[in-house]
């Protein structure tokens, strides 16, 4: 039976006016009982608590972003970066701090932040991805490929391209080249820019230089301003 029932009752979750044992207490109890009929419930509870944990991290991040938002910064971002996107107006050092503090949220948190569609949350997602990409390089490549479809400003584009894969650039050089080649042919100009900026992660070697030159041939005459700028950027670097 339940130990410390007084505590369990006192700390219970009140839902719809009724007292329900906290899921954490129930999970411990079901684990202790070790009954096969509870195994599926244990799995479901763990999954639920894991998701709740990510939701709570997201709530905490949003609280910080709201508290740190600044109307002048917001105005600047709207004017020079992303006129059409949702923006908090938070400075980069704060975003760096958030990504350091919340990198424990892993890939799941990265996806939640990215899917929010708010500029700073996307940048934090890119920064966290950059910190954890070593844990699963394949997953990272899969995510950046997916995320590239949702880019609509240069700040998010370049944060994701330069920071998101930096740590795995060496071991995934071939895959990054392939992805870049594919993205550069996209109809979406943000994907084309992303494909170019991705190449900045690669080593300044003769062999890389030749490959890069070959890849960017396709976009050298691109008329889109942000693609042109990226081509200039990569040419300067190599």
């Amino acid at each position, binding site marked *: *039976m*339940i*130990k*410390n*029932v*007084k505590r*369990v*009752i*006192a700390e*219970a*979750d009140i*839902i*719809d*006016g*009724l*007292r*329900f*044992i*906290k*899921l954490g207490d*129930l999970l411990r*109890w079901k684990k202790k009982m070790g009954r096969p009929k509870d195994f599926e*419930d244990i799995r*479901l*509870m763990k999954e*639920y608590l894991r998701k709740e944990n990510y939701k709570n991290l997201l709530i905490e991040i949003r609280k910080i972003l709201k508290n740190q938002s600044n109307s002048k910064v917001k105005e600047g971002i709207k004017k020079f970066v992303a006129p059409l996107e949702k923006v908090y107006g938070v400075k980069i050092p704060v975003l760096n701090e958030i990504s350091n503090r919340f990198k424990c949220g892993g890939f799941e948190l990265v996806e939640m932040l990215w899917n929010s569609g708010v500029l700073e949350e996307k940048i934090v997602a890119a920064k966290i991805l950059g910190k954890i990409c070593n844990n699963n390089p394949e997953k990272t490549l899969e995510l950046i490929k997916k995320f590239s479809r949702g880019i609509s400003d240069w700040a998010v584009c370049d944060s994701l391209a330069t920071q998101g894969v930096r740590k795995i650039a060496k071991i995934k050089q071939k895959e990054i080249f392939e992805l870049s080649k594919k993205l550069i042919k996209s109809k979406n100009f943000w994907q084309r820019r992303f494909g170019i900026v991705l190449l900045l992660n690669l080593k300044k070697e003769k062999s890389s230089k030749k490959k890069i030159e070959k890849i960017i041939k396709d976009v050298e005459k691109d008329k889109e301003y942000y693609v042109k700028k990226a081509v200039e950027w990569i040419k300067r670097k190599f």
Partner: protein
Amino acid sequence: MKNKFQELLAEFKKLKLPDEEYVIYGSGPLGVRGIREIHDLDVVVIDKLYQELLLKYPGKEKKDEKKRFIKLGKIELIQQAVH
């Protein structure tokens, strides 16, 4: 229209158990969060309340190897000694 779980909770509310003398456990906490469907309600009640309920619902007490409980339809009120 209420689903079966909501109906079960409505049934339970009618018992008007005093707050801080019971807690719903078993699968109920999973049901209320929509984690899975549930068909019955297990409720732990402290011993003092259990004794009162025995008087209120005579003949409804059941026992198994591990516990004594009062069975009211799909609701089981399980005796729990307070340590």
